């Protein structure tokens, strides 16, 4: 992989949450313009890796670079301003704010929302209809759309998307998959996904994390052929 083609480089990071050593050597490289999926069982360290990239957890060892710029030691808002959008697990949309306000708060320039509104509503037409409704009144699928849309308001270079399909109906998952595929034409995506079918259809590359370590990585097309690896680390037959 040519170094200049790498947008995000995570090199042997170690992260503690309280006294617990959660990440004990996670490494991965996300190619510019790709969808890269992080796979692994519950508790393997996938979400912790995303939150470490964003500076929400302190990394005690290793290196994280975005386009060659070191992220470690920066505060989450500074990292986000460097062009990283985050769609957290369980969405974390603001229930008391309207859909419009949920989008407005993500704008970094005054005209961000105006500029991106057409693209966002093309991806998620429902949000236009629900624009003035409060986030708490949306269904789970609509909240997930809003969480993704919120990350699209500024022109981010990288999107970190955590478990987008969790708890959603199949039809909504299909819609989200189509949206993520479309938005990947504009931005790079690092995805955490438990649903292997969704992951394998979306991503070009993968990294498997197990017990806080990177244990495998490569092309998704190769992984779908490797039943032994899938069974060993993902428990999928």
């Amino acid at each position: 992989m040519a170094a200049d083609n790498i947008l995000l480089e995570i090199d042997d990071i170690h992260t503690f949450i309280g006294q617990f050593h959660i990440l004990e050597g996670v490494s991965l490289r996300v190619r510019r313009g790709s969808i890269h999926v992080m796979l692994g069982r519950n508790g393997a360290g996938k979400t912790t890796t995303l939150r470490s990239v964003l500076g929400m957890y302190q990394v005690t060892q290793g290196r994280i670079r975005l386009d060659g710029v070191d992220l470690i030691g920066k505060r989450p808002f500074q990292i986000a301003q460097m062009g990283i959008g985050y769609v957290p697990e369980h969405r974390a949309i603001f229930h008391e704010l309207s859909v419009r306000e949920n989008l407005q708060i993500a704008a970094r320039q005054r005209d961000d929302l105006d500029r991106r509104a057409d693209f966002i509503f093309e991806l998620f037409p429902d949000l236009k209809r629900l624009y003035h409704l409060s986030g708490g009144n949306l269904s789970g699928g609509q909240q997930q759309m809003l969480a993704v849309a919120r990350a699209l308001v500024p022109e981010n270079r990288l999107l970190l998307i955590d478990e987008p399909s969790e708890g959603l109906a199949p039809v909504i998952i299909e819609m989200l998959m189509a949206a993520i595929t479309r938005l990947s034409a504009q931005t790079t995506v690092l995805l955490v996904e438990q649903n292997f079918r969704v992951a394998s259809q979306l991503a070009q590359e993968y990294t498997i994390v197990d017990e806080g370590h990177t244990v495998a990585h490569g092309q998704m097309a190769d992984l779908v052929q490797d039943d032994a690896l899938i069974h060993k680390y993902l428990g999928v037959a």
Partner: protein
Amino acid sequence: MAENVRNTALVVAGLVFGLLGFSFVTTVILSDGDLGSFGITVMSGLFQGMILFLVASGLSIVFGLMDVLNLAQGAFFTIGAYVAWTLHHADELEAIPPDLRFVIAVSTAILVGALMGIFLERVLLRPLYERPIFQIVLTFGVGIIIGEIAKFIWGTTAYAWVEPFTLAEGSFRLFDQQFSVYRVFVIVVGFLLILAIALLLQRTRIGIIIRAGVEDSEMVEALGVNVRLVFTAVFTLGCAVAALGGAVAAPFLGASLGIGQQFLLGAIAVVVLGGLGSYEGTAIGSILVGLAIAVVAQFSLEFLNQTVWQSITPMLLLVFVLLLKPSGLFGKER
């Protein structure tokens, strides 16, 4: 959700009409149709409610956003009262017309409150953001230290506001009773501030950030917002508004050491009764508690010949509301 809103509206309406009805019955019916006494009770209730709001609004927004219960809020009120009193009565400023001197006194009190707030948040509270219990102890300690500094500067004597200015001297007659223009002024200032803060929260970007931060400040930061800067701004605003409260209360209540603590207890009752972190709850709760204090004061003075009941009224009302709505009038399950 609609049912919850309806229940809250019913409780608020019930309390307001209950209090006003009780006051009306005790003053107008039992006191030979004296509408003036009823008017004074309402005016006094709104006045106390607005003063309470000036202490409680900062307490509520800061708690909602930062999870910090600022027990020094009463001390900022005290400092506001002392600073305003001192400047208005300063011999060095005698050449300045009294009305302008009052404006300067109040503005300076707000500025002093804001500067002290910035210092408290940036220097003392910031290192303790991960330790909520320490923050409470710290703000409690800071409140005591500010009180001691006030004692050192102004002594233990209570200062009455003796230097007149136009608003404080004015009065008007209604139902055969004399009403102070200054009370109306404080009530108007309070309502304008309720409106201004509501507009700030609803119509501006900083307001959206504050409301979102009350729900999930970590996510707000992940969107690229410098939340610590917002914390500083909100904490400063809370302290400045408390100092404004002390400054506008001083012409009526004077400046004394215990004045802030006296309102802090009521303000804590307001914040819990209104629903922790809820701005509308704080605004409505302040008016309710103010009215309740005034009604109970009027009733107990007139019929029981004692004043003890009014000091425990905020707590009694708090218990009553929490029995009906355990999370407060506008509170969410936390």
